[in-house]
């Protein structure tokens, strides 16, 4: 009997393993065959066996839901604290208070040089809010059932917020969007979605974060739909055939609070490896890779002190086949077709280069970032007056310097364009762009009205005079991390011609930093030495010849 026991155990474990393998095989196949759930589910996601709950078995989810808030109400019966947690986060508030200046920042308050401002344009912008019904200033930020659970936890890929729905998806009947386009959005099957909730995925995060600025890849450049199923070269961590990270692998939430915001950016992690007991989740490169991440080259490790990992390891952005917008000129908006209707122009690649509602665009792919010293602090211009004579206004200003040990050289996407401003008060403006009323720019193509309405809505002084000013906005680049073999090479920077750090000041970079005076003086001296030697040698040669002649040899 004693000898039998281990045999039985072996048999049981072997059977277990075989069953696991078989079920894993079928699970994979089932995913691949199922067009809905098979899109990009990685490890730890809904269908994986790690979940301890099958939501289709919950009675409260076995009903026909009329609206999103109805689903939320059902979710909250079990997940009692979920909405409260969400309400603490910028995903809900769209607000962030700058700890240094006390200034109110966040999506709600910041003016950018894409769509400019949210105020008075809510229904369009808040289609990416983690809630339902933020149509205007009166939105109740304390209503728990207004939290949208599904937009993040959908695993079916069928849940989509209507771009103009203030956060709601389509209910009951198909809706046309864009208006007059003939494209209809189908109503969402809320019961199906609710019964299939699971962990967040690249798709759910990407539904908003890949689409910022009004479309795929527009805003960030390092975030677009190509990251739903990236290969090894596009993102070494998210590679679907490799590590297959989701967004949450790095942006690991704690009680629905998700670390990693541009508003509180860690430009230099001096702690190295993240230790779970510190209450610190992995987010920076150093959290996993430590402070000496190049095992074979101490010289490269020294770079960590002054160069952000992203600088070398994200050699270019918008690498996934989708372009990003790098120029948006609102000043040319309003040019209509012969029929008085809005027009759209495309370039040879099919990218829209002009839209009557928005103006001119430039799109770029495989863009090399611009590099600046950065300490993690970003100031925003917002409604503060700027100096007279400002030619190019920075709508946000990055801080950092070569003398500051907390600064490193970071890669940036710099978004440029032109946008309206108040020429008398010299402030940016919050134009009323979206809306089916008689002042919105997209309906009436009249900046006078649009700016006046928007400024009144946002409670800011407006002189009544507007013009257009060129603006810049700085976006630190952190995604689309290339594998080591695609990273920048030493020669990418350490070269005089076209070295990518040629414009970075305040630090001696061997191979780039020239010492023109020293070089000139030295080479002159060396040339003179050479000339002197040649003259002396010639004199010796001639005089010895003469002597030989005299001596008759």
């Amino acid at each position: 009997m004693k000898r039998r026991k281990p045999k039985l155990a072996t048999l049981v474990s072997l059977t277990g393993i075989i069953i696991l393998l078989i079920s894993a095989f079928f699970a994979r196949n089932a995913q691949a065959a199922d067009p809905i759930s098979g899109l990009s589910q990685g490890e730890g996601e809904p269908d994986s066996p790690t979940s301890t709950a099958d939501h289709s078995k919950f009675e409260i989810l076995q009903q026909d839901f009329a609206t999103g808030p109805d689903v939320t109400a059902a979710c909250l019966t079990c997940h009692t604290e979920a909405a409260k947690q969400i309400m603490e986060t910028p995903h809900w508030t769209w607000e962030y208070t700058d700890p240094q200046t006390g200034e109110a920042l966040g999506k709600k308050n910041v003016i950018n040089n894409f769509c400019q401002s949210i105020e008075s344009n809510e229904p369009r912008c808040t289609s990416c809010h983690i809630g339902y019904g933020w149509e205007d200033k009166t939105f109740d930020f304390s209503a728990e059932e207004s939290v949208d659970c599904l937009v993040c936890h959908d695993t079916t890929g069928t849940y989509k917020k209507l771009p103009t729905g203030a956060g709601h998806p389509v209910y009951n009947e198909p809706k046309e969007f864009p208006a007059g386009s003939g494209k209809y959005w189908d109503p969402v099957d809320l019961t199906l979605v609710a019964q299939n909730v699971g962990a967040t995925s690249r798709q759910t995060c990407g539904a908003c974060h890949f689409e910022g600025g009004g479309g795929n890849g527009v805003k960030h450049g390092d975030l677009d739909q190509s990251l739903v199923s990236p290969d090894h070269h596009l993102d070494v961590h998210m590679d679907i055939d490799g590590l297959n990270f989701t967004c949450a692998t790095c942006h690991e939430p704690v009680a629905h609070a998700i670390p990693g915001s541009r508003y509180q950016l860690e430009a230099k992690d001096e702690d190295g490896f993240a230790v779970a007991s510190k209450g610190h989740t992995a987010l920076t490169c150093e959290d996993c890779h430590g402070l000496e991440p190049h095992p074979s080259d101490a010289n490269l490790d020294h770079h960590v002190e002054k160069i952000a990992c992203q600088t070398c390891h994200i050699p270019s952005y918008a690498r996934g086949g989708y372009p990003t917008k790098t120029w948006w000129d609102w000043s040319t908006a309003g040019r209509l077709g012969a029929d008085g209707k809005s027009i759209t122009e495309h370039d040879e690649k099919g990218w829209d280069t002009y839209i009557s509602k928005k103006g001119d665009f430039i799109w770029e792919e495989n863009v090399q970032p611009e590099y600046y010293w950065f300490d993690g602090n970003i100031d925003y211009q917002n409604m503060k007056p700027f100096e007279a004579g400002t030619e190019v206004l920075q709508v946000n200003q990055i801080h950092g310097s070569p003398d500051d040990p907390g600064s490193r050289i970071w890669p940036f996407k710099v978004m440029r364009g032109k946008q309206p401003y108040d020429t008398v008060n010299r402030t940016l403006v919050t134009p009323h762009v979206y809306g089916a009323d008689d002042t919105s720019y997209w309906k009436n193509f009249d900046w006078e009205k649009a700016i006046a309405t928007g400024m009144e809505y946002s409670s800011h002084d407006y002189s009544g005079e507007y013009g257009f000013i060129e603006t810049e906005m700085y976006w630190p680049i952190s995604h689309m991390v290339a594998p080591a073999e695609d990273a920048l090479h030493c020669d990418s920077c350490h070269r005089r011609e076209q070295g990518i750090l040629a414009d970075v000041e305040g630090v001696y970079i061997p191979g780039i930093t020239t010492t023109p005076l020293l070089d000139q003086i030295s080479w002159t001296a060396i040339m003179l030495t050479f000339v002197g030697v040649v003259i002396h040698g010639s004199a010796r040669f001639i005089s010895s010849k003469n002597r030989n002649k005299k001596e008759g040899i």
Partner: protein
Amino acid sequence: MAKKKIKIYTTFIRFWHWTQVFLLATLAFTGFAVHGTHRLIRFDTAVKVHNVTGIALGLLAFAMFFYYITTGEWKQYKFDKGDILAQIKYYTSGILKGEPHPHQKTEISRLNPLQKITYLNFKVIILPVMGITGTMYLYKEYLEENFYSALGLKLFVLNNVAVLHTIGAYILVAFVIVHVYMTTTGHSVFSHVKTMLTGWEEVEEHGEG
């Protein structure tokens, strides 16, 4: 006039000299690549080769100093001032008139006064400065962390160190040009080079000898 052959350069001196030729040439080529003067090799290759070669030269220099001190060879560098003028006069006019060399090489005194000054400068100024700045450059992060910041020094930031190191390099280039040219001033164009290779020098025998 009778001539005799004397051994001017010992095996070690010759080994040291020609190894140094090789190392300095490598250092110059890779160093000017790091400086950005040329791009004939990759930057990282240049850095790696330069570092290794620099350390090798440092070791060689230690061996050289050890040799000079322990064998008493350093006495080769004792000189008196009067000889310098004679040497300068020889190089500026005497050599053109076919006058004899004012300095007679012997086993005890193989260097003429100008050589003494130049080589002494090379050994006790240029080489140590290059060695020290090179080391400071190589260990910049360590030094910055442990010394400069503690001392509040901004003086030794890489910029200054690199500039000093570069100045040294330029001086060495000029030195090598003159040095190579001077090898042609022997009995024949290549006799000095030959001596440096074999160690043997043909000198005129003096009456007393």
